[in-house]
Each structure stands twice: as structure tokens, then as C-alpha cells.
């Protein structure tokens, strides 16, 4: 077998794998759309925002484009975390008067069985950098400069629900 044929085979393998990944992803999104269509009014793939027990919105990837990008360097690894402030995301769907300093905001990940609860006073303070960083595989990861979210063990990877509860 000549080198050219080998290279062509390798390139075909790459294309087939890429096609399979995108195909499976497309099927998953279609299935999710069907399930969502019959159970809740949320668009597929959205992260539900629950306010006092009621789903008020579904946070979509496209919503991120409306928000300002922020970043900080985490103390543990010196890695730049960049993303979007949780405060800005919540204010896309909730009015400021609906949120009090003591309002509890819980971000959770069902696949990782992890959650973090903060109050609005902590979340609204921009210097705390309570934000979602986009992980390499495209999921949201809650990180912050606050000690309770300051290291990898405390981050909420694959976040898929935001709950807001007033006292």
C-alpha cells in the first residue's frame, strides 16, 4: 500500500469519526426535543431556572452571547477561568426587585450529584466572580473566587439546574 493510500485511509477515518460524533449528537438532540416537547415547555438543552418552585425560564446557549465575558485566574492552578457571571444570567430572566440579599441560589448538576448554594448578596457582587466557565466539552462549570467554590473539588461541573428561592 502506498503512502498516499494510507494517508487517504487515515483522513477518511477522521471524517467518519467526526461524522459519527455529529450524527449521534444530532440524534440525541432530536430525542431530547421530543421528550421536552411532551413534558415541559422548555426548549431542548436549556438549563431550567426555577424561581420559588416554578420554572420561569430555560437558559439557552444562545443567551450567553448577550452577556459580557469575564475572567479570573484561579488560585489553585493559576488557570484562567472565563465565562459569564451567574448574576447576569439570572437578571436576564428575573427582575432585580425579585431578588433580596438573602435569596438562596442553588446551582446543581444531576449527572455529578453536586450542588452549591449561595445567597444573592454573594452572587451579585461582581468581585466574587460567581460565574459559569465553559468546559472543554461544552458544559457549564460554576466557579468563583469565593472560598466555597474556590477549588476544583467544589466547582459544579456539568451544571444543569438553577434554583432561586426567596426566604
Amino acid at each position, binding site marked *: 500500500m502506498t503512502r498516499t493510500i494510507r494517508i487517504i485511509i487515515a483522513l477518511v*477515518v477522521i471524517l467518519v469519526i467526526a461524522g459519527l460524533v455529529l450524527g449521534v449528537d444530532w440524534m440525541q438532540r432530536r430525542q431530547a426535543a421530543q421528550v421536552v416537547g411532551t413534558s415541559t415547555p422548555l426548549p431542548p438543552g436549556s438549563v431550567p431556572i426555577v424561581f420559588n418552585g416554578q420554572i420561569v425560564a430555560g437558559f439557552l*446557549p444562545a443567551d450567553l452571547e448577550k452577556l459580557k465575558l469575564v475572567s479570573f485566574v484561579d488560585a489553585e492552578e493559576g*488557570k484562567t477561568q472565563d465565562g459569564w457571571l451567574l448574576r447576569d444570567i439570572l437578571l436576564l430572566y428575573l427582575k432585580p426587585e425579585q431578588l433580596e440579599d438573602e435569596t438562596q441560589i442553588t446551582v446543581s448538576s444531576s449527572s455529578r450529584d453536586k450542588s452549591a448554594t449561595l445567597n444573592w448578596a454573594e452572587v451579585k457582587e461582581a468581585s466574587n466572580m460567581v460565574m459559569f466557565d465553559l468546559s*472543554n466539552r461544552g458544559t457549564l462549570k460554576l466557579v468563583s473566587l469565593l472560598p466555597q467554590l474556590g477549588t476544583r473539588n467544589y466547582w459544579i461541573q456539568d451544571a444543569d439546574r438553577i434554583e432561586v428561592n426567596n426566604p
Partner: protein
Amino acid sequence: MKQHYFSTFQLILLGLFAALIVIAKIALKLPLQLPGHSGIFWMAILIVAARVVPLKGAASLVGLSSGLLAAFLGLGDFGPLDTMLSYTMAGVGVDLALLLLGNPENLLTASIAGMIGHLAKFLVKWGIGIISGAPIGFVALGLARTLVSYIIFGALGGLLGGLTLIALRKAGFFAYLAEKR
């Protein structure tokens, strides 16, 4: 006679390459906020390792060793299993590609091997995401972009590895290694 097993010297070299991958992952921070950008140095090291120790499985061994080391050091956002498997599969991908393509001193060969190695790493991360039930919508956010980014950075890493090998040959490193054996 053709050598089939790794010599102690070769194992030490591969161990050093594995350590180099982990050190590079920790110390080299590129200001590129693009998924998979670490593939530039990662694939370069794997390609160089696979040529410096020209035995089947050399890159896989480097991948496995670096994966174990990285898992113990707590690297990676998605836990030790994801870290170990993704590091290992990057090496396995490079080995399989070189098995088909041959000598990575050819820059095109090195680039394609880098692409395949990095794609293997992406597949592990994507697969674990599916198995663990990571939220589909956000996984889908730029999945095609992430995939292309992994392939491009893998190719760049492979190219860098190929150029390094050419430079090593010019510097007489392979002649030196032959004497050592």
C-alpha cells in the same frame, strides 16, 4: 535482530516523556480560550516519543503513564477516570495512526497522527459526557467547533512533533541513541 521489548533505557525515556506531558499541561498556559489547545504540545511530545522509541505501543505507554500521573495529581475537570482514559487514548490513537502511516518524520504523517491522537482524546471526553448524562444542550454548544478545534490543534501538535524530530535528526540525536542501544 529486531527488538520486540522495551529496554530499560527506552522505558526511562518514555517515563520522562510522560512526565514532560504532565509538566507541560501544568506549566505551559497558552492564552488561547479554545478547546483542545493543549494538543499543540501534547501531540508534539507523543509524536517525538513514538519516534525516539520506535517500538509498537511506545506512545500508548507514554499516554498511560502520563494519565496515571495526571490522575494522581488531580488534573482534569472531570475526575481521574476521564483524565486517565483521555491521556491513554491519545497515546493509543497516535500509535494506531503511526502503525498505518509509518515514520512520523514526514510532516504530513506527523500531522495526521497528531489529529488522530487528539481526536481519540476528544472521543473519550465526549463518550464519558454521554455516559454520565451531561446536559445535552450545552454539550451541543459548539460541538462541531470543539471537534474542529481538537483536530486542528492535534494537527499543529503533530506538525511541531515532526519538526522537532527533523531537528533532532539534524543534531545527531538518533545517531547518539543508536550508540546507546
